[in-house]
């Protein structure tokens, strides 16, 4: 249609350009938290160019210049992809889209261009969620999205300004749309596995543990208040000393650092689900604990289970190693939630000869420690006694627990045990396992988190990076792998109350130990909200969807339920249409039909014509229907003007009959 094309070619006013620039800037701003600085700078540069042109009311750049810019952007994206080995695929894609939308804004001349920019702004809003989806971003999106919609409305209908309250209109539309949105959100089927995957590393460098352990590697984390995971534990509240979140086991010590089991495949069989785990538990084994964990992205594959995990369920594909470690098949690059079951104690395991050799292997060096361990091996026949001897050593001697240990010499273990004697959990775990192996007790290092702050408001445990910990496991015949925490011997309060309690006042400036009570409760409240947000909105997936339907007692599948719901909503929409007020007076309604019928046959009633005059004219224009017209008109006039009160039903029926007769005679 001609009007449509002219409408789409309507030039954009100066203020409208300003709004477009503003909304694009606001949509792109939060991207800065994930994009590499160089890319952010490019976007800012392009946007600033557009803004300067706008400020000066300068003409838009030529198409050739824009083409060159587009080429440059693409080359830059290519270079960045090549330089990082493709690990930034997703970020680069998002940044390129952003750059092209800005370039589109630089050649935005007509309404159709502005509409495209507006719609793409909405898509850019969505890309903000790719890295993470905090609560504030949801609020931000609602605000910006509403503003974008308002500008869109004004673009298409500038005449609305001042004649219509736009915000209430948008509010009403949102209210009409909300049932659809909620229904679709709850019931739209989710995918189990992604359709495509753009590689995405973590350019920001998140704090977290790495898969090797060297002196100081955990101490780096102790200052980080970042949340590592949150857990809901069923049953009674557990003491902090029972909360060992086991991540992975380290076997191989090269004299400087602990490494994962080299040459040995880390991944084992598929992890058993929680339901199947009950059968695996030996009779009379330690009591099982059920819990669910919401884990923040770590960019590593390992999962954290309480002590000795026996089963795990959730949306993840998981594996379990022979060491009782749990892994996701892909690195955890988004927040995940899983349910798990653990036993607080040893599981019935065996130690193969190969494993025994590996659990006793030691690098050369550290002669004084070897000598000490050899002495224990001679004195104590039972391995358990040798463990106790080592713990006694740590508890009695002037060993100290500190965040800032002095540097160690070349012979790490000797240097720590006999010279510095000040260290952090990794020092104690390393020396302990070294001593045990030297004394002939199979031992290994375990890394994970220990403890966790109990939030009475959210009724969950918050485990932070600061709770990172290393401890040991020794093989005791008949009991299996037994957890031994040498740090507990030197600083029991670390285990009971967390690292904060130990280091309060001495090493840590911003200690939470001296926090005011109200502040702590406020923090708990906020954290509880964040946790609920993650649990009920962000973690809403296939499993929860199915569970919700089950809880509601719906037997239909998710797509069926969705179709049913949509059909019901569609019917609801029709209600206002069906219930539109009709002509209430049946007489007037019938006369209206009479007039329309005659109008179709070329005899139209003029506004000034009364029913009698009209009928008289109709009799002349349509002679073939003259008696029927006359009959209807007489009856109508008598009923409408001749008799007081509402006409009887029989009379109405007769009038209707007269109308039918008229229609017949006209046919």
């Amino acid at each position, binding site marked *: 249609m001609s009007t449509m094309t002219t409408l789409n070619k309507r030039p954009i006013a100066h203020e409208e350009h300003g709004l477009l620039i503003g909304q694009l800037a606001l949509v792109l701003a939060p991207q800065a938290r994930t994009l590499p600085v160089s890319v952010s700078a490019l976007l800012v540069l392009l946007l600033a160019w557009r803004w300067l042109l706008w400020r000066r009311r300068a003409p838009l750049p030529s198409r050739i210049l824009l083409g060159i810019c587009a080429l440059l952007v693409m080359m830059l994206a290519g270079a960045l992809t090549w330089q990082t080995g493709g690990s930034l695929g997703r970020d680069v894609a998002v940044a390129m889209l952003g750059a092209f939308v800005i370039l589109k804004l630089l050649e935005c001349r007509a309404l159709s261009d502005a509409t495209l920019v507006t719609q793409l702004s909405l898509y850019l809003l969505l890309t903000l969620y790719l890295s993470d*989806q905090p609560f504030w971003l949801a609020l931000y999106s609602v605000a910006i999205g509403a503003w974008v919609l308002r500008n869109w409305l004004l673009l298409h209908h500038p005449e*609305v300004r001042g004649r219509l309250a736009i915000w209430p209109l948008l509010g009403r539309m949102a209210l009409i749309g909300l049932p659809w949105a909620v229904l679709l959100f709850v019931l739209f089927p989710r995918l189990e596995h992604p359709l495509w995957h753009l590689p995405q590393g973590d350019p920001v460098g998140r704090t977290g543990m790495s898969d090797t352990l060297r002196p100081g590697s955990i101490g780096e984390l102790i200052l980080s208040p970042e949340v590592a995971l949150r857990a809901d534990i069923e049953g009674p509240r557990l003491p902090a000393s029972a909360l060992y979140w086991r991540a992975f086991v380290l076997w191989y010590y090269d004299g400087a650092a602990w490494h994962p089991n080299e040459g040995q495949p880390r991944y084992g069989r598929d992890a058993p689900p929680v339901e199947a785990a009950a059968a695996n538990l030996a009779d009379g084994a330690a009591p099982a604990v059920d819990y669910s964990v919401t884990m923040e992205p770590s960019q590593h594959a390992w999962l954290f289970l309480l002590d000795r995990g026996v089963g795990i369920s959730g949306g993840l594909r998981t594996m379990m190693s022979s060491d009782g470690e749990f892994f996701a098949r892909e690195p955890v690059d988004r927040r995940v939630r899983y349910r798990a079951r653990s036993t607080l104690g040893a599981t019935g395991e065996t130690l193969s000869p190969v494993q025994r050799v590996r659990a006793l292997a030691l690098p050369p060096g550290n002669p004084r420690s070897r000598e000490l361990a050899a002495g224990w091996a001679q004195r104590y026949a039972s391995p358990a006694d040798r463990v106790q001897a080592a713990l006694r050593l740590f508890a009695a001697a002037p060993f100290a627990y500190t965040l800032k240990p002095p540097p160690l010499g070349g012979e790490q273990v000797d240097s720590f045990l006999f010279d510095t004697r000040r260290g952090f959990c990794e020092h104690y775990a390393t020396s302990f396992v070294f001593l045990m192996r030297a004394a002939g007790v199979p031992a290994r290092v375990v890394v994970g988190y220990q403890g966790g702050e109990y939030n009475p408001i959210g009724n969950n445990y918050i485990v932070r990076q600061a709770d990172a910990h290393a401890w040991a496991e020794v093989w005791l015949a008949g009991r299996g792998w037994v957890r031994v925490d040498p740090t507990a011997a030197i600083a029991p309060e670390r285990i009971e109350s967390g690292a904060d309690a130990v280091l309060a006042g001495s090493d840590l400036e911003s200690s939470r130990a001296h926090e005011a009570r109200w502040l702590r409760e406020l923090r708990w409240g906020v954290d509880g909200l964040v946790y609920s947000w993650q649990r009920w909105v962000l973690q809403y997936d296939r499993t929860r969807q199915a569970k919700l339907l089950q809880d509601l007692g719906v037997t239909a599948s998710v797509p069926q339920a969705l179709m049913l719901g949509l059909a019901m909503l569609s019917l609801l929409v029709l209600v206002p249409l069906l219930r539109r007020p009709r002509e209430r007076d049946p007489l007037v309604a019938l006369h209206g039909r009479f007039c329309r019928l005659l109008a179709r046959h070329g005899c139209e009633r003029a506004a000034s014509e009364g029913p009698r005059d009209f009928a008289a004219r109709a009799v002349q224009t349509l002679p073939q229907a003259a008696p029927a017209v006359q009959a209807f008109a007489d009856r109508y006039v008598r009923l409408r003007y001749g008799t007081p009160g509402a006409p009887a039903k029989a009379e109405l029926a007769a009038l209707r009959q007269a109308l039918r007769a008229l229609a017949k005679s006209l046919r």
Partner: protein
Amino acid sequence: MQTAQAAAPTRRFWRLRPRLPVDGAVTLDRRNLYILPTRGGLGFGLLLLTMLMTSLNYDLSLGFALTFLLSGMGMACMWMAYRNMLDLTVTAAGADNGFAGQRVGLRLRVHNAETGARIGIEAAVRGGVDGVDGVDDVGRRESSLTLDGDGSGLLAVYLPATRRGRVSLPRVTLSSRFPFGLFRVWSYADLPLSALVYPAPEAAAPPAPVAMRDDEDGSAGASLASDDDIDSLRRYRPGDPLHRIAWKHSARTGRWLTRTGHTPRQPSCWLDWHTLPAVLGTELRLSRLCAWVLAAGDGVELGLRLPGVEIAPGHGAAHRRACLEALALWPEKPRTSGGA
């Protein structure tokens, strides 16, 4: 209710069934209101689909929320677009006649009986030329019409005036793309309205022949009588025309006085079809007559003589219109008898 008369000769497509006015007004009720997504609407659908795929793939709960909220808004948009046009009434509101080669305007009055505002209503006709005009109650002019609650306004459609004669309004399509241009809601109105196309005035017409009437003397071209040549004066009576008031005498005497006696003569002439050169064709003759009628102005009294039609001498806008109408419709006779 489809009658044989309407159905037999050309079975009309249901959608194109005539939308005749009842009591002169076409109501855009829900049985005659249509809605389809526009190209922009399809684009928005594509955008939503892309957003959905992204959310699905990356399992973005917030992404789903945003996508579905926007879909809900789209649904609401459909309803809002429909409500925006529902139950408007359209009546014919007159025509702007034009000359052949130019355009004629046909005006529709759109009335909104409800309390909510109606935004961006457009009218279009097949073969119409650009310049759709909306004028609301306040007199604001836009390319589309926006009505406040319980208000009405005028929409004009323009048709090219190709040939002299009567141009009747074809089926009008009334449409709106409110609120986001995602959906187009439209309906039809068949209103009995027509405009006249006058003959195109001849560009280089010779001056009008001043054929004096027999009873006319040489004073035909005299200027208007001044206050000084008074035939007689009498006291002003209510109803006396303003131009007969003797202003100077009234000012001098302090009483209202009216002049009586001779009215100043107007020059007058007959524009006669038969006196035109025989070489001219019908349309050329009409064109020349048209040019003369327009050139005459208000000061000249003129009559028009066409084969079968005669308009007595007169002057003024109404007279001129009558002449033009006769020229436009000839050989058909004009409805109004000529002469002022």
